[in-house]
């Protein structure tokens, strides 16, 4: 038996081979060449200086070419020879043919490997990559100079400026989004914002008196304004009082009544008030100084009554005269000396007579 010639260790090694039946049959047919080593190993972390003389997967088209090549060579070989009846001679010729075919296969595979190695070589890949990059850069360079590229660059600049402005002043986004009838520049907006933020201006509500209803006019007003309110409401113009005549002022006297709160309090007369020359109360002669001491008044003297101008002075004694002064100023009051003297006999100041001196 020929099997007995096989070494047991070799036989066990053959039994344990990791082979695929389909691949073996295809290999016999010449359809496909088995892969000895995956490409992954050739591209592994080994030294880059290694020569990657590795078996690669050959495409099916190439393998079909090889099979056709094999068929042609085998056909040609068998055309030259008649089929021998002797098995050994036939086997020997067949072996020669198959060896030639294998040799041709090896040559072809070497060529394929050489081409594959050129592609796999990292230097070559780098060169190809550089060339492709240079081509891409050459192709992309004129695109930047085209109008579309320039427009894109301008758009990019504007957008970057906008983003930068919003980063500096985030509140500007609200101003930009707000629909403002008066278009203002961003700089003015910024100034306005700063002034408003520093000086807080209280906006006074606008009151349109022509449109409001009459019952709404009873709202509270500041002091002094009620005097003007009837005039404003009726629409009449305000007539200022007339200036008093000098002679009338001479005739009329102003009663200055010192109010004594208690007996212990020392009444003290100060110097007469200095009035302006234009004043209605201007006196031509200076009033005599009144010196009041504690002994000046008798002890049995009854206290002088307090004069209430609003009650004691009769309405007809007070005349309102036209005067150019404003209503805010003190209006002059003309007092009838007779009525005053009747009501208060203590002291009557007459401008025409010299002032009495204080009785010691």
């Amino acid at each position, binding site marked *: 038996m020929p099997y007995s010639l096989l*070494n047991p260790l070799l036989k066990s090694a053959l039994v*344990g081979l990791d082979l695929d039946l389909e691949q073996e049959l295809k290999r016999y047919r010449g359809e496909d060449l088995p892969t000895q080593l995956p490409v992954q190993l050739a591209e592994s972390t080994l030294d880059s200086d290694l020569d990657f003389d590795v078996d690669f997967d050959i495409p099916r088209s190439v393998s079909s070419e090889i099979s056709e090549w094999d068929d042609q060579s085998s056909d040609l070989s068998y055309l030259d020879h008649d089929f021998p009846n002797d098995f050994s001679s036939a086997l020997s010729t067949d072996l020669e043919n198959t060896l030639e*075919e294998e040799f041709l296969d090896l040559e072809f595979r070497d060529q394929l490997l050489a081409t594959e190695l050129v592609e796999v070589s990292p230097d070559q890949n780098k060169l190809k990559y550089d060339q492709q990059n240079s081509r891409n850069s050459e192709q992309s360079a004129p695109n930047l100079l085209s109008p579309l590229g320039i427009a894109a660059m301008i758009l990019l600049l504007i957008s970057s400026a906008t983003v930068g402005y919003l980063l500096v002043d985030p509140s500007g986004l609200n101003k930009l989004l707000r629909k403002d009838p008066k278009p203002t520049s961003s700089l003015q907006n910024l100034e306005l914002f700063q002034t408003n933020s520093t000086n807080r201006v209280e906006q006074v509500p606008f009151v349109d008196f022509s449109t409001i209803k009459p019952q709404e006019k009873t709202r509270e007003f500041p002091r002094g304004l009620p005097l003007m309110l009837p005039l404003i409401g009726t629409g009449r113009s305000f007539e200022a009082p007339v200036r008093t005549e000098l002679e009338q002022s001479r005739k009329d006297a102003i009663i200055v009544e010192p109010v004594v709160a208690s007996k212990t309090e020392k009444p003290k007369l100060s110097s007469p008030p200095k009035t302006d020359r234009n004043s209605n109360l201007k006196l031509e002669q200076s009033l005599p100084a009144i010196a009041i001491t504690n002994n000046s008044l008798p002890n049995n003297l009854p206290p002088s009554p307090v004069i209430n101008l609003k009650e004691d002075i009769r309405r007809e004694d007070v005349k309102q005269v036209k005067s150019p002064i404003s209503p805010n100023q003190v209006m002059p009051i003309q007092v009838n000396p007779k009525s005053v003297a009747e009501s208060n006999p203590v002291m009557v100041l007459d401008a025409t007579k010299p002032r009495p001196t204080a009785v010691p």
Partner: protein
Amino acid sequence: MVLKTIEINHPIIEPLLAKSDQELLALFHAHPDLGRYLVVIFCRYGQIIYTLTRESGRSAVEAEYLFGKTWGHIYRELKLLNLEATKPLQNFLIDITAVAINTFDANLDTHEHKIKYDLSLTPPILLCYLNQALDQIPKDLRLVLTLSQTFNWSSSRIAAYLKSEGELQNTQVRRIKDIDELISQANVTLTQLLPQDIQEIYLAPNSKLSSP
């Protein structure tokens, strides 16, 4: 997890154990028809690679299969190795082991149900040179040899298959006797394609490995 390297006691291997890695690599490249230098490298670094494959979280069968495949990768890469610009041999072997493990993981589904490798019966170095010899053997001899030994086809089945195929290509193989003769021829050719020292180390009648 200790790897038994029986080759280390072989008279061909023992004198080479004192040589450095560079010398071994140089001799390996200078004498491609000899397998002893690879055997020395295997004796020196086999344990490291075996540990790496066993500790990668696999079963013992898968680890041994991966170990054998890794040495196949190493053998092919060592033939292409540039001796002048290379890193230490140990690092180189570890890198190749890592690549082999990754490749095995990527194709794990295809390997799951067809692992027939037994490390105790087939030394990895013998497997490397056996695969090389199978690549060099004529395709019809390879076919009958693998069909008969690896796939356990009978001679009649092989003859029938070759007959069907032979009508298209080769009509010389027609009988079962022819098939047996062809298998015998394949055995002889395969053995002759193995390096001489590998035959002496592993297949010699007096070798410890030849009779497992």
